[in-house]
């Protein structure tokens, strides 16, 4: 019985040690593990001079309502918002099907000297809600356009 107890203690101690070290590694790397920054975080980083025009980064948030503007040369610009701060994004290239107003989006690229974001690729992000189109229509009718 004592031997078994000792084994339980040993295994737990072993597991806790390894879990702690993994936790510390992930904590130290947290800034690299995040996939994208919100507009607020990017503007904070610009003001802290942590990033400049050379740094490659990803900006994520919601496409602001009626902000998508199509230009004649095939490029688009739109506003990404986190409902606190927002950033203007320029992009030229293929847009994913899910890219829409009031949908999640992630732009990959860098900032320019005017604080705008020049994207070289765009990824669409969808949320965790799944429902048939009819249900979405009734939801829209019931709660307005939100």
């Amino acid at each position, binding site marked *: 019985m004592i031997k078994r107890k000792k084994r339980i203690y040993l295994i737990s101690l072993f*597991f806790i040690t390894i879990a702690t070290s993994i936790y510390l590694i992930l904590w130290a790397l947290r800034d690299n593990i995040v996939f994208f*920054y919100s507009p607020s975080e990017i503007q904070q980083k610009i003001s802290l001079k942590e990033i400049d025009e050379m740094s490659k980064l990803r900006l994520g948030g919601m496409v602001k309502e009626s902000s998508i503007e199509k230009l004649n040369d095939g490029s688009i610009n739109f506003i990404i918002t986190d409902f606190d701060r927002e950033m203007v994004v320029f992009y030229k290239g293929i847009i994913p099907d899910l890219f829409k107003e009031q949908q999640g989006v992630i732009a990959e690229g860098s900032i320019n000297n005017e604080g705008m974001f020049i994207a070289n690729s765009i*990824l669409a992000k969808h949320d965790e809600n799944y429902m048939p189109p009819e249900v979405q229509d009734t939801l829209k009718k019931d709660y307005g356009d939100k």
Partner: protein
Amino acid sequence: MINKGNELKLQLVNPGILERYIKTMSPWFCVAFISSLIIGLWFAIFNSPPDYLQGETVRIMYVHVPSAWMALFIYSSMAIASLIGLIYGHLVAFIYTKSVAPIGAVFTLICLVTGSLWGKPMWGTWWVWDARLTSMFILLFIYLGFIIVSKSFNDPLKGDKISSIFVIIGFINIPIIKFSVDIWTTLHQPATISKLDTPSIHIDMLIPLLVMFASFIFLFLYIFSIRFFSELNLRRYVAYTLSSK
């Protein structure tokens, strides 16, 4: 002095008796798998609505999500079995861990491949190195690592202890996978079913998802029973050759 409950427990940790139980159950696992697969696929392909945003592509979910659940569930069960094996020394725990590992690895692979096929039309990319996708990719390698470690001993009894420790170390990855979408920003969306408030999936889509999950569980049990017999026979053979030397 042995009461009924203890008697059953003793029978279940006895490999020979457990083998007889599984032998009677395994054809029923197969029947349950095939029938629930037919029902599940019929629901998933013909009798469930398209998504308001993703359209028909959402049907990939009915394979992708259950296989992700199975990958996590099988690994967690392996970690519990390894713990029991290390503490109590029950042989069936080691045999269980070793027999289900390849099943978990294949479910992880199915999850990664279907996720990639789903990511291209929806997100616009086959693969990104965000926290959820990367941690799931690591899980595949943990499974493969376990399979290699557990096979690299001539005497299976010697490999059991080391490979069980390996499984317990790898278990740290499971909560990382589960909570990666909440801790860090990811391209992958957060959990739908296991949210604290009500699941945000329509009931017509939840039914095929759960039926497919049930069918994957029966598939897992059926393959497990086959692998359990072969692993047990392998150990009998090794024990026999070692004793006759």
